[in-house]
């Protein structure tokens, strides 16, 4: 123990007296560890902790019905949910919920909050205990009934009620209806949708009061997300089998309510399709893998530094060995030094991660979505970072330590072998490390290049509309107490008046905006189409105002745009897109054909060109656009096409709407271009970090090549003197050093291409419009890496070539 303490003190002194080495090694490792810690902090906040505030999410599953989708609608009706909950034997609990925007009313302007209607055992199934009051459990006997009770989220309790400890029993008004606050959820709990935050929970039976719907008793209306907890020893597959058996019975008993696909599939929470994780669980592990490669590169760099340093300390080691130090003792001493360097790198990385962990939120554009993707450095990130640091010490330090301790003390102390210069194997290890560095850099750069090309391709895609010069603003009429008729009239007036504002080319309303994850989907039955067994008939659905296509500048391929005359008093009409026609009425004239939505038939009056409404990288999906004036929606987004800067129109639009209702809150005032950044946010995250890692890898590789070539050149100064004595000109020496670097680089490039060709096919799912073996990317990366490598060799080459022969010959 005392020896260990001595070694520790000696190690600290060594690091202190070599500040250059210490700073370089710590900085290099900090870069690599910080990259991993940052990505891990995001994985920790999303995949490992899919719904914050809940422990043991590993046994929880979400249920999906019908064809699997990345963007499923809530899959279950309340009656089906109740039957599943009553009959399942494989689950310890099953909860249902529906979340959406609602407003706190009763004060001045309504305050918009995101809340959920939850089944009575919602909190019990999740294992969440309120910090004040109780949960919704006592409402279970009256789950279908409108029980005016509410559980507040912690942040809403803090922000709206200043953390009032006597809040339980007080009344809050939601969408103009009074609710008694019965409890407050614990801090950090946001509900059970990944990446989305709910601020309040009300009983399911309040659907009519809150949103004016009556879905609770309708088996044909799917509106609930369902989450279950597996019993011990039961697998997700077993649970799915059992739930499917129950579902088959329900389908047989109520066939009218279960048209289309009904197969139930399950997902663990970490990759739940309900929420943000569905877009992250593929990207984040890929980024972590890239970060791990970067860390390996950093380790290779530090290993090279240690090798160089061990040569300089050969005499010290020889003296220690001659005085009785065992090899193990020397290795231990060196590993303690390495561990200190790695831990210092880990500590620096943690400091950096405190800031970089918040970068995930920075990428999210202004959106109406209640995103809650805050990552931070918690205990798990701390422990993981420290473990990675220790591992880093082993990876970067073990081989140099074994090498350094494997010398012959007698030979070193005699300082013999002056008769020959250079050693056959002396720099082979360093060279191998550089080859590995170049190979890993190439891999990272190729990945970065592929992501960049993919994003470029996605951005080049015609979205099917013109995103320039469009101002967006959202409002919700529900909290203001509008009936459907009043709301429809208000929305009509808004559109009419905004269209009259000077500078406005065209304005319309819609219940979504493209590429912002706000579009809905719905099951429709196209007339004359015979679905395959279990085929999903779910299509994208928008409710839009008159001249929607004209306002968005979406080409009309046949028929007409929606007009002011498409009202509740006229025939139900709709526009479909080309993808809809291709899928359901291929080769037929769609104009005049009908499709059924619920119990209502809609006649197609126009065919629009395909557009991108969910993500730029998705293929165009079938879409139906229905007149808002025929199907009222309380929450709508005003689209205003302007002739100038769209944000300039903002005051006039606000003034016009407030002339109609001065108290109506307006949300999310932005441009369409800004809003649709959400449509490729995950690609941009991947590109930013892959490119950052690629750039860091390039720098590390350049430093590595420079270090090895410079060191090797210095080691070979005597040899260079001999060569000059034998007639080598400066150009010969310069060329020799460059060739040495070029050989290492070429070997690294060859190895890197081989590794990349093996690895990059795994990225296929994340790429758009570019192959995993894209020749242009590989060629560009190889050229960049070669140029950087040669540039890194330039300085040592020039230095070597400028040595005076006599001076070089005197160098030992």
């Amino acid at each position, binding site marked *: 123990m005392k020896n260990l303490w001595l070694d520790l003190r000696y190690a600290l002194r060594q690091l202190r007296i070599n500040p250059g080495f210490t700073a370089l090694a710590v900085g290099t490792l900090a870069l690599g560890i910080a990259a991993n810690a940052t990505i891990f902090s995001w994985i920790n906040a999303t995949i490992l902790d899919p719904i914050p505030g809940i422990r043991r999410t590993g046994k929880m599953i979400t249920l999906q019905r019908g064809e699997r989708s990345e963007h499923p609608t809530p899959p279950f009706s309340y009656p089906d949910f109740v039957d599943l909950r009553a009959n399942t034997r494989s689950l310890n609990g099953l909860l249902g919920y529906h979340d959406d925007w609602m407003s706190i009313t009763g004060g001045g302007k309504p305050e918009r909050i995101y809340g959920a209607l939850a089944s009575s055992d919602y909190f019990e199934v999740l294992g969440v205990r309120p910090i004040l009051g109780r949960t919704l459990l006592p409402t279970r006997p009256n789950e279908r009934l409108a029980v005016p009770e509410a559980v507040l989220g912690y942040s809403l309790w803090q922000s709206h009620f200043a953390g009032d400890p006597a809040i339980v029993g007080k009344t809050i008004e939601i969408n103009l209806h009074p609710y008694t606050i019965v409890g407050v959820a614990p801090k950090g709990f946001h509900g059970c949708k990944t990446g989305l935050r709910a601020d309040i929970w009300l009983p399911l039976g309040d659907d009519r009061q809150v949103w004016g719907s009556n879905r609770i008793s309708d088996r044909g209306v799917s509106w609930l997300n369902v989450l279950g907890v597996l019993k011990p020893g039961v697998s997700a597959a077993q649970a799915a089998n059992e739930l499917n058996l129950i579902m088959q019975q329900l389908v047989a008993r109520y066939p009218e309510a279960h048209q289309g696909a009904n197969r139930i599939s399950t997902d663990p929470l970490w990759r739940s399709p309900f929420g943000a994780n569905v877009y992250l669980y593929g990207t984040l592990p890929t980024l972590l893998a890239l970060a791990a490669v970067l860390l390996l590169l950093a380790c290779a760099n530090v290993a090279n530094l240690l090798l160089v340093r061990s040569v300089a300390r050969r005499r010290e080691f020889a003296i220690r060995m001659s005085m009785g130090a065992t090899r193990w003792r020397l290795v231990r001493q060196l590993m303690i030094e390495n561990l200190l360097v790695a831990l210092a790198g880990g500590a620096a990385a943690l400091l950096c991660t405190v800031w970089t962990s918040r970068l995930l939120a920075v990428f999210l554009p202004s959106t109406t979505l209640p995103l809650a993707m805050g990552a931070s450095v918690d205990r798990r990130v701390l422990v993981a970072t420290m473990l990675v640091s220790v591992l880093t010490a082993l990876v970067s330090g073990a081989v140099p330590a074994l090498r350094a301790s494997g010398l012959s003390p007698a030979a070193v102390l005699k300082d013999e*072998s*002056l*008769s*020959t*210069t*250079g*050693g*056959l194997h002396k720099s082979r290890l360093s060279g191998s490390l550089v080859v590995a560095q170049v190979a890993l850099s190439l891999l990272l750069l190729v990945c970065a290049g592929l992501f960049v090309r993919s994003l470029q391709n996605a951005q080049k895609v015609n979205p099917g509309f013109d995103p320039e010069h469009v101002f967006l603003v959202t409002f919700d009429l529900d909290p203001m107490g509008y009936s459907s008729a009043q709301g429809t009239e208000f929305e009509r007036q808004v559109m009419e008046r905004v269209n009259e504002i000077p500078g406005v080319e065209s304005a319309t309303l819609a219940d979504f905006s493209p590429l912002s994850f706000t579009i809905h989907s719905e099951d429709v039955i196209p007339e004359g189409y015979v679905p395959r067994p279990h085929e999903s008939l779910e299509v994208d659905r928008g409710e839009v105002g008159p001249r929607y296509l004209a306002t968005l500048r979406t080409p009309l391929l046949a028929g007409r745009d929606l007009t002011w005359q498409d009202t509740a008093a006229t025939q139900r009409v709709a526009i479909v897109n080309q993808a809809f026609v291709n899928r359901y009425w291929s080769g037929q004239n769609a104009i005049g054909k009908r499709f059924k939505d619920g119990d209502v038939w809609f006649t197609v009056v126009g065919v629009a060109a395909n557009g991108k409404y969910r993500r730029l990288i998705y293929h165009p999906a079938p879409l139906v656009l229905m007149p808002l004036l025929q199907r009222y929606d309380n929450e709508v987004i005003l689209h205003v096409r302007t002739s100038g800067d769209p944000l300039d129109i903002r005051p006039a639009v606000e003034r016009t709407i407030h002339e109609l209702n001065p108290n109506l809150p307006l949300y999310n005032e932005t441009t369409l271009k800004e809003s649709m950044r959400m449509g490729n946010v995950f690609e941009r995250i991947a590109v930013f970090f892959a490119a950052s890692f690629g750039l860091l890898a390039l720098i590390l590789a350049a430093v590595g090549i420079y270090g090895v070539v410079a060191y090797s050149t210095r080691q070979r100064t*005597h*040899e260079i003197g*001999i*060569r*000059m*004595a*034998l*007639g*080598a*000109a*400066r*150009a*010969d020496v310069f060329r020799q050093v460059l060739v040495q670097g070029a050989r290492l680089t070429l070997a690294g490039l060859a190895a890197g291409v081989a590794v990349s060709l093996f690895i990059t096919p795994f990225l296929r799912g994340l790429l758009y419009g570019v192959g995993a073996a894209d020749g242009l990317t590989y060629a560009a990366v190889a050229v960049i890496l070669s140029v950087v490598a040669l540039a890194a060799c330039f300085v040592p080459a020039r230095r070597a070539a400028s040595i*005076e*022969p*006599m001076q070089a*010959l005197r160098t030992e």
Partner: protein
Amino acid sequence: MAQNGTLIEIEDLTKIFYTDEVETHALSGVHLTISRGEYLAMSGPSGCGKSTLLSILGLLDTPTGGKYLLNGQPVENLSFSDRSRIRNQEIGFIFQSFNLIGDLTVEENVELPLTYRAGMASAERKKRVKEALERVNMAHRMRHYPAQLSGGQQQRVAVARALAGSPSILLADEPTGNLDSKNGEAVMHLLADLHREGSTICMVTHDPRFAKHAQREVHLFDGKVVSEQELVKLTEEAEA
């Protein structure tokens, strides 16, 4: 051995080293002529300037002053690349510490100076390497690395390397300094053989036994060429 004219002629050669504010006169007005085919030994006490003189003769260093004619051409003010070219074609070095390159085989070491000679075909290089190694009886070790050879063998390889380019002169700096007496004698015999075959040799040595192998001996003391009698006198004065 017949004298075939002057190969090297230096007049009033000086070399001053400057370190901080201290001037060290390594050579002070050296006059020396070396004829083709001559075997010259330069001797003198440690620090007398013989290695400095050899470096200047080998164009590894430049004089501070004076004239240096090689093959009748002034070479004291040539550019680095011209000096490299002349060194490669006209001069063969034999070092005390052999200075073989450990990463290269015997064959590659001997071939090395030829690789710096533009336009020489690979077959020609191989032929010359083989001949040079045969001359020093090391052809059978072509594929070996220097570390696999004894000191005497390494020095023979170094001699072969110096010979391979068919230089005008061999400059040997204490060629036996790192060898035992038996191997030292062997190397001296090898140089004598080369001289008999026509090579011009200029050897630095401080060992009088080996200096006797040369046709002519030049003594240096404090950077000047002195006679043997002067050397004895100056040495005695210095010791006193």
